[in-house]
C-alpha cells in the first residue's frame, strides 16, 4: 500500500544529518569569556560511535529515497528516535571526557553539528510519524521515545558536563521563580485580554459602526514592537504612580510587572477580537434564521446557538494569543518584570551563550507545553457535534 509519506523532508533531514558530521560538535573554552576551540565529531566521540552515527545517517538517507511504505515509515521513525538521544549522549559524554582534566571554570558548549542533527532528526521523526496517522498508539509511543530517553539520560547525569547544564545547576532556583513569573504574566495578560477582547469581538459583529474602529485600534497596537510599547507605557505609568501613592503601595510603578502586563494585555487583543469576530460570522445564517423563526429571543439565540458554534474559533484565538504572549513576556524582563527573559538578557550582558540558550530553550518549552494544553482544552470545550473526524 502506498503511503503519502513526504520522504522528501526525510531526505532533506538525512542530508542535514550527514552534513552535521562535518561540522563542529563541541566548543571548548577555558572559561566563560575565553575564545573557544571547535571539536569535530572524531574529537568528541570514539571511532566506533562516530562510525555508528555516520552509518545511521547514511541508512536514513537510503531509506528516505526508497518508496514510502509502512515498514519504511516505522524504520525511519525508529532511527530518528534513536539518533536524537544518541547525538546528545555523544556530545554529553564527549564533553565529560574533554573537561576531565580541565579547571572547574572551563566550559564545553554544544556545537553547530548537534543543533543541525537535532533538527534533522526531528524532520525525519516527524515526517515518518505523519505517515503513520492510522496507528495512533504506535505513533504516540514513537513520538515519546526520544524526549523520554533524553529526559532519562539527563536525570542520569549524561549531560552534566555541558555548559548548558552548568548554567542550569547554577540557576535552578531562579529558573523556577522566573518560570512562575513568566506564566503569571503570560497567562494573566491573556485572561484579562480575553475578558476585554471577546465582548469587543461580539460588539464588532453586532454593530457595524464599531467594527472598523475596533479592528483599527487592535491592529495598530499589534504593529508596535514590544519593547517600544513597553517604553510608551512606562512614562505615563510612572507619572501616574508618582501622582497617586496608593498605586505605588499596590506595586504599580513605572517599570516592572505593571507596564509589562498592560502591554501584554494590549497585544493579546487582536488575535482574540479577530477570531471572535470570525467565529461569530461563520455561524450558519440558516441556523440563525431558523432559530429566530421558531421564537428564540436574541439572548437565547446568542447563548444557545451563536456562542457555542463560535467556541472553536474563539478558542483558537485565545491559544494564539497565549503563545504570542509567552514570546512577548520574554522581552518584559528587560524592563524589570522578570520572567525567563531574565536569563536571555543576562546571558547577553555577560556574553555567556549557554545562559542565553537556557532562557531561550525554557521559553520555547513553556510555549510548547501551553500550546498542547490549549489544544486539548479547545477539543474538550468544542461541542460534540462540531468535532471533526479523528479529533
Amino acid at each position, binding site marked *: 500500500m502506498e503511503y503519502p509519506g513526504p520522504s522528501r523532508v526525510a531526505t532533506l533531514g538525512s542530508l542535514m544529518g550527514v552534513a552535521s558530521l562535518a561540522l563542529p560538535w563541541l566548543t571548548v573554552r577555558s572559561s566563560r569569556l575565553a575564545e573557544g576551540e571547535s571539536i569535530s565529531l572524531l574529537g568528541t566521540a570514539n571511532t566506533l560511535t562516530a562510525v555508528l552515527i555516520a552509518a545511521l545517517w547514511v541508512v536514513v538517507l537510503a531509506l528516505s529515497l526508497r518508496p514510502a511504505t509502512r515498514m519504511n515509515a516505522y524504520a525511519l521513525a525508529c532511527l530518528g528516535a534513536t539518533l536524537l538521544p544518541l547525538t546528545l549522549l555523544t556530545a554529553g559524554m564527549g564533553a565529560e571526557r574533554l573537561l576531565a582534566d580541565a579547571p572547574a571554570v572551563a566550559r564545553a558548549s554544544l556545537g553547530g553539528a548537534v543543533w543541525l542533527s537535532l533538527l534533522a532528526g526531528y524532520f525525519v521523526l516527524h515526517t515518518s510519524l505523519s505517515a503513520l496517522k492510522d496507528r495512533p498508539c504506535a505513533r504516540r509511543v514513537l513520538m515519546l521515545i526520544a524526549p523520554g530517553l533524553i529526559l532519562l539520560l539527563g536525570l542520569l547525569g549524561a549531560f552534566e558536563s555541558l555548559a548548558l547544564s552548568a548554567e542550569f545547576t547554577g540557576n535552578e532556583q531562579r529558573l523556577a521563580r522566573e518560570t512562575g513569573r513568566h506564566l503569571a504574566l503570560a497567562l494573566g495578560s491573556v485572561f484579562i485580554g480575553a475578558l476585554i477582547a471577546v465582548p469587543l469581538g461580539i460588539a464588532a459583529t453586532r454593530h457595524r459602526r464599531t467594527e472598523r474602529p475596533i479592528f483599527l485600534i487592535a491592529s495598530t497596537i499589534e504593529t508596535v514592537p514590544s519593547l517600544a510599547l513597553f517604553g510608551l507605557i512606562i512614562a505615563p505609568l510612572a507619572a501616574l504612580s508618582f501622582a497617586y501613592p496608593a498605586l505605588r503601595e499596590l506595586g504599580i510603578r513605572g517599570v516592572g510587572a505593571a507596564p509589562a502586563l498592560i502591554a501584554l494585555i494590549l497585544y493579546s487583543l487582536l488575535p482574540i477580537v479577530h477570531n471572535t469576530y470570525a467565529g461569530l460570522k461563520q455561524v450558519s445564517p440558516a441556523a440563525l434564521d431558523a432559530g429566530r423563526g421558531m421564537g428564540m429571543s436574541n439572548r437565547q439565540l446568542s447563548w444557545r446557538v451563536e456562542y*457555542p458554534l463560535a467556541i472553536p474559533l474563539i478558542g483558537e484565538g485565545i491559544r494564539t494569543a497565549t503563545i504570542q504572549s509567552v514570546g512577548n513576556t520574554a522581552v518584559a524582563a528587560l524592563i524589570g518584570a522578570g520572567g525567563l527573559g531574565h536569563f536571555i538578557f543576562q546571558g547577553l550582558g555577560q556574553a555567556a551563550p549557554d545562559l542565553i540558550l537556557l532562557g531561550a530553550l525554557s521559553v520555547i518549552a513553556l510555549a510548547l507545553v501551553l500550546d498542547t494544553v490549549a489544544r486539548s482544552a479547545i477539543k474538550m470545550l468544542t461541542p460534540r457535534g462540531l468535532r471533526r473526524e479523528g479529533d
Partner: protein
Amino acid sequence: MILMEELTKRYGESLAVDTLSVEVAAGEVCVLIGPSGCGKTTTLRMINRLVEPSEGRIFINGEDTRKRPPELLRRSIGYAIQSVGLFPHMTVEQNISVVPSILGWDRSRISNRVHELLLLVGLDPAGYTHKYPTQLSGGEAQRVGVARALAADPPILLMDEPFGAVDPLTRERLQQQFLSIQKELRKTVVLVTHDLDEAVRLADRIAVMRAGKLVQFDTPERLLASPTDAFVRSFVGADRALKRISRVPVTSMMQPVKTLVRSGDTLSGDVSQVPRFAWVTDADGRLLGWLDTAQSRSPDSVFEIDAAQVEYLTVPDSASARDALSRMLGQGVRSIPVIDESRRLLGEVTLRSIEEVTAE
C-alpha cells in the same frame, strides 16, 4: 384562521409586496407561488414577523399579530425553511426539543414528543435521536426540520420551499409524507414554492403572485381549468390538463367490471357479459390476471400477472388518474385495473373515461 389584510412591504422605492389580501382557513394548505422576486417569501416571513409589514395587518384567529412580542408569536407558529437550518452542535433530539424546552415542558414530555414526531416523519427514533446534523442525508435533515417545526404542536405551519434542496425522488417521498401527516394533523399551512407540480399536489388553495401582487387565489382544479389572465395561463403551462388529472383519484372515476373467477381448475362467470380480454380473479376477488376469451376459455390460458408486473400493469387505489394514464400509455393498453393493498380488484380505468374527465 390567518387573515392578511392589504399587506404591503416597501424596500426603499420598490414594493416587494403590494396590498396583498388573502385569507387562509383553518386546516387548509395554502401555497404561495410565483416567479422569483414576486414577494412570496417576504409574505410568508411577514406572517411570523421576521419581516415587519410597511402597511397592512395580519390577524391570526382574529388577533392582530402585532399585539404580542414577536418571539411569543413565533413559538406558536412552526417554521421550516429550505436550507433547514438545523443546529450543528445539537443532536436530532436536542434540535427538535428547542421550542418545547423554551416553553418549559418537562423532560419526559419532551422526549415522548420527540419519539412521536420522528415516527411521524418516517425516521426510526432509536437510530436518529443521537445523530448530529452532519451525519444526516438531505432528505433526513428535511424531515428533522419538519419534526422540529411541529414540536410544540403549533396550529400553524410556515414552510419556505421545504422540499427544494433534495433530489426529485426524495422530494416526491417527502411530499407524500407531508400529505399523510397533514391528513392526520390538519394544520393550517402556508407553503412557498416555485414548483407548480408541488403546488398542485399539496395545496387546498393556491395563491399566484406576481411583482408583489396577488393575481389569482383558487383551488388547483379551478386554477388549472380557468386561469384568470395570460400571465397565469403561461405560468400554469400548456399541459394543465395533465396537471389537473393528477388531482383526480382513480377511485372517483373507475368503473365496475365484470370478471371471471378461477377456483382451482375451474373458471366460472358469465362469458357473455365480459369483454374479450376479461380480468380473472380468485374466489376472494383478488386479481390473478387476464384471459383472451376469443382464444380460449380454459383456466390454463390465463395470463398471470406476477409480483414483478403488478406495478406497471395495475394501479393502486391511492393513485391518481394521471398515474393510470401514464401506465396505460406505457403498456399500450386501453384499460387498466385498480387494485387495493391485498390485490383485490376494485374497478377499471379506461382511456375513454380519462378523456371524459379531462373534457369537463
